[in-house]
């Protein structure tokens, strides 16, 4: 009887032993992650976020972007400063009305022309005629400094 009780006590202490976490694989994963993040680390940060729903054209240009008034010209919509202004198809359907809407949108922004450039994010498949009309509307509204945002191709 005494011997039996002793063996039970021994089993209890064996069950209560602290569980040891195997952290080796987690540390390995973290090291890989840190190396990847360090590789794509950017000191300047990202001033411009690529607009959703449009693919920017690839370019070998290395000119850095400055902050400015954003015009997004997607396959379906034209946005000025994040606000939907008109449908892209309207640029060819009713040119005058589209130019008027764009001018009103550019005039309605808080930023004054000349203080910052206009950043144009145009879809790579966009008909250049549409882009040309937007550039003309910018010129008429007094926004003469225009920056075309492109996707830098790493060579």
């Amino acid at each position, binding site marked *: 009887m005494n011997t039996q009780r002793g063996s039970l006590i021994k089993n209890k202490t064996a069950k209560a032993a602290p569980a040891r976490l195997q*952290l*080796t694989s*987690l*540390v390995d994963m*973290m090291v890989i*992650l*840190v190396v990847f*993040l*360090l590789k*794509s*680390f*950017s*000191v300047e*940060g*990202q001033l*411009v976020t*690529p607009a959703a729903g449009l693919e*920017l*054209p*690839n*370019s*070998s*240009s*290395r*000119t*850095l*972007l*400055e902050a400015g008034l954003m015009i997004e010209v997607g396959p379906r919509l034209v946005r000025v400063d994040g606000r939907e202004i008109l449908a892209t198809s309207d640029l060819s359907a009713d040119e005058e009305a589209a130019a008027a809407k764009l001018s009103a949108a550019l005039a309605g922004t808080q930023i004054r022309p000349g203080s910052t*450039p206009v*950043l144009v994010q*145009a*879809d*790579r*498949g*966009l*008909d*250049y*005629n549409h*882009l*040309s009309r937007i*550039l*003309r509307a*910018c*010129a*008429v509204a*007094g*926004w*003469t*400094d*225009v*920056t*075309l*945002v*492109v*996707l*830098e191709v*790493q060579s």
Partner: protein
Amino acid sequence: MQTCTSSLRGRRPSAVAGVAELDVTPVMNMFIILIPFLISMTAFTHLASHEFSLPGDEAADHVTERSELPLTVAVGTEGLLVAQGEVVVAEFPRQASGLDLAGLTALLQSQNPERLIIAVDSPVVTADVVACLDACAAAGCQDVGLAAGTGVVLSEVSP
């Protein structure tokens, strides 16, 4: 002495030497601070720019005569055409892979023009225009303008 040797012989070598356990908790703490910081500063897409200087509203009525035009690269659906005034300098038909930008760059390098205009026909896509701007920049052209359909120089592109 005999008893001591026999007791050591019974144990596993690791138990005798004592396995060194690494405490990775500080390393994990450092990673937990470092990873969110690096994620916030990571640029997953590298954006660049082509800068333009548009002429004002008054320039819209100014039409340049074709004979007065500097070296002009016409971008169309069929390909590229390079002309000096009214004289065609070279033609680069569109290939299966796209525009013959290597040919354009080689020509521009040999011509070394001071001023260049890119005239775009409809329905050319923006990607083709950007590719032409890149080819001009690769050839060392400093003063590149974009023309509107009527022959008006719409904008000047900075190098």
